[in-house]
């Protein structure tokens, strides 16, 4: 059996710039509007917690179970739960059923959710900090391993993530070194 592809996020890397939201709404609606995005960023900058909320493509999807019209189905090819808009009756049950709040509504009350862009997610491409990954399950989970639980989403919302100061100082030292190097290079050009 082929590996399932999943979309995942490293909460420590997300800085909350909202560019993924904009890219998502542009791709599907041609307008810039975070409310028409299938990915939503919840930010608490003071504790460095930016939490992208999007469909996690559950194994047992409560939205599909809740749908009275059976409009939500699993697409084997992309590994995404999709909405069949021909069947959808617009009752919003899926929105209420999702424990993560990952389904949004358009102004016409159509439910919208992440469909993994058919296997080529726009948000992954636009993220300036490489916080969103897409790939085979094993590879993505491997990238997220850092001695903590992968499912820290609730914890992050409550307390935020703190990166140990030691790392920051090292990064800052590197930055200063780079700066001096650039200055050295610049001297040669004499401008």
């Amino acid at each position, binding site marked *: 059996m082929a590996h399932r592809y999943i979309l995942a996020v490293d909460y420590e890397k997300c800085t909350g710039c909202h560019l993924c939201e904009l890219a998502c709404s542009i791709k599907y609606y041609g307008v*810039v*509007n975070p409310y028409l995005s299938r990915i939503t960023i919840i930010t608490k900058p003071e504790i460095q917690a930016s939490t992208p909320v999007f469909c996690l493509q559950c194994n047992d999807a409560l939205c599909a179970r809740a749908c009275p019209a059976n409009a939500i189905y699993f697409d084997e090819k992309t590994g995404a739960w999709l909405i069949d808009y021909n069947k959808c009756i617009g009752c919003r049950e899926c929105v209420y059923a999702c424990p993560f709040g990952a389904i949004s509504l358009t102004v016409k009350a159509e439910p919208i959710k992440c469909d993994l862009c058919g296997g080529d997610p726009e948000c992954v491409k636009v993220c300036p900090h490489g916080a969103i990954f897409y790939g085979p399950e094993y590879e993505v989970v491997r990238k997220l391993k850092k001695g903590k639980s992968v499912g820290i989403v609730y914890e992050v919302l409550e307390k935020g993530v*703190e990166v140990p100061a030691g790392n920051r100082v090292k990064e800052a030292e590197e930055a200063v070194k780079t700066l001096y190097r650039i200055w050295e290079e610049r001297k040669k050009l004499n401008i």
Partner: protein
Amino acid sequence: MYGWGGKVIYVDLTREKVVVQPLSETEAKMYLGGRGLNSYRLFKMVKPGIDPLSPENVLCLANGVLAGTALSMTSRTEISSLSPLSGILGDGNAGGDFSAILKHAGYDQIVITGRASKPKYIWIEDDTVEIRDAGDLWGLKVGEMVDTLRDIHGDDIAVAGIGPAGEHLVRFATTMIDKYHSGARGTGAVWGSKNLKAIAVRGTRGVEIADPEAFFKLAKEDEEWFKKNEFVKKIYSVIGTHYGLLAWYPGWKYFEKYLGPEELPEGIRPVDLAKYEVGRTQCFSCPVSCKDVYKLPRWNEYGVSSEFESIYALGANNAITDTEAILKMEQMADEYGMDVITLGDTLAMAKFLYEKGIITDTDTGGIPLKWGDAETQIKLIEMIAYREGFGNKLAEGYRNFAKIIGPEALKYSYDVKGLSRGWYHVDFLNGIFTLAHATSTRGADHLRGRSWAYWENDRNMDPELPLKLLEGGLPDYRKDPVGALIVSERACTLTDSIGRCKGSINSWPQAIPLVWKYPLFKGLAKLLTAATGYEFTEEKLVEIADRIYLIEMAFNVRQGIKKKHYAVPFPPEIINTPKIQAEIKRHWEMVDEYLKRRGCDVETAVPKRETLRKLGIEWVADEIENKEFPEWDGPPLWPLDKYPRGR
């Protein structure tokens, strides 16, 4: 309208009336938005000679044409008013989410007049605009205020508002956006004088783009460059503007000297600041995370965005090297809503005057003002925000503070048109620093043209960029400083008017998108055409920029700015040295040349009718020609007991 939100909100707080009007197409095309639209509106609505803290003053907030579109770094809100700090045009430019969300609600500008009888806040949700009671919010610090509003309206709102400093009419109180982003020049006190605490907005409409395909292709190209650039990725996204501590020669002990990279004392080096950092953040739609999130173990508190300016003004210039205390002061300035540069420079000046014996313990109420005394400074900052004791005098802000102390103190006020010069380089860079400080339309400032004129950061970002710019027609500051400055002033004006950031990396590519590819403004013209559907060209953009700049100059002429106010001060101790005298002589030659090229009268510094006619704003000439305006001497100051004081 594509690109623009298409509507302007007028709020009359005295009558508690809200009127929403469509943005006129002509105004939009002539002034774009943001700073352009604000300066135009202020010129039309503010009568010359009024008290900035009276109900007649007008407060404008505007976002800019490309705000909230997917072009990166378009997160700036421009807040403009007649400044209570300087008494001339005062505008602050702040980041955060406010600008984009206001655009997504469908608005380009908010114009506020009058004075409410009780504290109020304005709630905007798409088509709903309401004036609401702010009794519970009044008195809250900025963080608490934003949290309370988020509890009421939800966490997807953006908030602009003031802290206790604004309420107490501190003359350098700022407009705070989403807790941590501040727009200076004293606009916060204008909110306070109008009894307006905050504006909260939710927008769910989004922005429509005329030619989405072309626009997003250009926007993506632009962003890719920032994602790949080494300087942005490895320096600015890691230490942000702290990099300036090494590159920009921060002043030490009220500009006694300027610290080179090797002279920085322990405590204010970028690596020392990194010890308190717990994460990084940025504004809406920005790929550069220039802002740090820091933790203060001593106080068990968090703060966001300690910029170069806060470290230099509150720290180095006051000879304070206690890293955590400096960060605490920065966080307090955010919480109370004060501008860190004016705050730090005023405190440093007070210490300097105390040392000289010009102010004594009688003035300070027994508080000793010592260099490097962080604890007292923290106390003083709180006293300023609530105008308590000696804080009441300091709250008048830099030049005004010196003015109430007396002429002996005023000699040491290094300001242009009421704004502190802040730091300036030891080398005079062919006079461009002094000239740029003198010609800025809001007083001495580094974001009106200076940094761009001599490629301050461009050389670090891409050493070949300056060469490309020269090929593209940018005058070389080494040969033609006046020409270089005028082009840079145009660039900054356009950037402020499209709503893009000038602060996060201080360089041409960010100020004028696609600059590395198309000479100067051609890339921007392409983006604007694609976004709005109107035909923009490089020539048209230059005309727009000049129109905005001259309207601002005309505004200041009405406030009494004469040619003599283009003077740049130097410390009295060095002013008679041959080096400085030569510098000053050269400065006045350049001012003449500047005024000539800007199309102003060289003797009076008043824009000429024929220049204004060419720019399609001859009506401005009727307002300023052959009229006598009382000479500027700062804003009218109130008797100190008339201000709201205490908690």
